[in-house]
């Protein structure tokens, strides 16, 4: 079942067509990967889908509803959340508070209830806490729950962002280079986690530089180059596409794509 429809999406930055006329769909329960060389427009595409940037042209539909240009907080309410390539962690907050923040929509009530610590507010806080601890366990950060987030390693913060995004209870999850800066063991774990998330019915949109990871877990691959979509298909066919190999020529990824 396709959850997310992208149609002719594009944006210009002062004459530069960062993303131009990109169309594809992402289905529930599948990993849809967006690959392409540095500067191809992958992050920009994610920013438009998640409402961080307003698209210059085209349309984003979530579950059949047009959600183009809708604010990120509204999209979160509709079940779309994301992580960031350049970490956007709440550095001064504890690891647990970062994960708890992801539960904002289910935990929030009235300000009065919060200030007076009314029973209903306390109950919601307890539920959110249970949920957050479960997610932290899932990304193996439960031991660090009370640590200040700023003290964590890069790989740990990447996982914390995933936990926070999962707190929203997303139907569509956008992961922008979740394995960047992770060692082999951590990459393996993220690989397993993404596969599990997709298996649980989430439509996962993945940007990742590690081609081995992409080829292993993707159901569908979209290739961008200079803002243009140059190929689309299953991992097998995309990796043999001459256009794709040409786009990657001269970059280290070519070995991975070919092999």
């Amino acid at each position: 079942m396709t959850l997310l429809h992208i149609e002719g999406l594009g944006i210009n930055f002062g004459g530069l067509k960062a993303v131009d006329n990109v169309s594809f769909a992402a289905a529930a329960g599948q990993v849809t990967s967006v690959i392409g060389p540095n500067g191809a427009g992958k992050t920009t595409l994610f920013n438009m889908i998640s409402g961080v940037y307003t698209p210059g042209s085209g349309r984003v539909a979530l579950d059949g509803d047009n959600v183009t240009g809708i604010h990120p907080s509204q999209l979160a309410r509709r079940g779309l959340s994301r992580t960031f390539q350049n970490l956007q962690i709440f550095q001064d907050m504890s690891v647990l508070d970062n994960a708890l923040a992801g539960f904002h929509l289910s935990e929030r009530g009235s300000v009065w209830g919060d200030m007076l610590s009314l029973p209903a507010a306390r109950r919601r806080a307890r539920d959110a806490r249970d949920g957050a601890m479960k997610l932290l366990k899932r990304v193996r950060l439960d031991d660090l729950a009370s640590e200040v987030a700023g003290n964590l390693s890069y790989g740990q913060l990447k996982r914390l962002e995933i936990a926070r995004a999962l707190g929203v209870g997303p139907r569509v999850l956008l992961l922008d280079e979740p394995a960047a800066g992770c060692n082999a063991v951590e990459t393996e774990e993220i690989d397993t986690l993404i596969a599990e998330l997709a298996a649980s019915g989430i439509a996962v949109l993945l940007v990742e530089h590690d081609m081995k990871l992409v080829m292993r877990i993707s159901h569908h691959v979209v290739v961008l180059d200079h803002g243009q979509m140059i190929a689309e298909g299953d991992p097998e066919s995309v990796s043999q596409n001459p256009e794709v190999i040409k786009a990657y020529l001269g970059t280290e990824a070519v070995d991975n794509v070919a092999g």
Partner: protein
Amino acid sequence: MLTSKWVQLAVLAVLIAALPLLFPSGYYYRIGALIFVNALAVTGLVILVGWAGQISLGHAGFAGIGAYACALAPEHLGLHPVVAIVLGMVISAGLAALIGKPILRLKGYYLGVATLGFGILVTMVLTNERIWTGGPDGMSVAKLGLRELLRDMGVRVSGGVFWYWACGIVLLIGAWLALNLYNSATGRALRALHGSEVAASTIGIDVPRLKLQAFVISAVYASVAGSLLALQNGFITPDVAGFMHSIEIVTMAVLGGVGSVVGAILGAVILTLLPQVLTVFAEYEQLVLGAVMILVMIFLPRGLLPSIAARLKRKP
């Protein structure tokens, strides 16, 4: 975290209760009450500045509204001073919601200048509307009446003692509300948007709405502080809303540690006591404030309390 809230409140309660044992004279009750009033306003700033990361250089404007509500409403509307306090809170909240909406879109310096403008505006109105406010000479404020009520019940307390306990209790309530907020969905969302607005919005946090809530809450804290100040002094001038007062409470917050309620109270204690203890400073108050601000920024950018806590933690 839950325990830490009660520990902080217990320490605060014990300090408020035990401090009078050290007072050499009745005069110190007055200083104590002044500290509590300042600490209340500073607690509001902790929510706005420390957690939500939004600066206000005009918060004394709301203190002015609270103060003049207590001066004007009993005289002209025949309201009981307690009702006048509530009226001040409502007006401050309404005004904060009204001006907060456009100006909280601004960031950093721009927000600082806009809030500064608001504070100046309130001071100007209070100074110019002589017929109502007595202008720069100020006006007298009717008595609260609670002390007389206590006397009729057989409890005789001096004005100083009464206001010490009254302000101490209000501060405790204010601190309790703030500490509840800290660990709630709202408090966490405020701290989150301080950390990253874009990340906060992608997890469903309505950033403009939450900023506005923080602004309104902190305005109400300042308003109550202004009301208590007016009632205990029995007299009020537009200085209560003035730029210096705004800077004073921001400096207290920054000195103690703008992220923590207890830190804020510590800042209020130090900067309220300083001019009292070292009377030589009274004349150079603004100079001392400026110097303190610069020194804290250089040596303890996170404020007294967090810096001390970090230093203690580092030692095994």
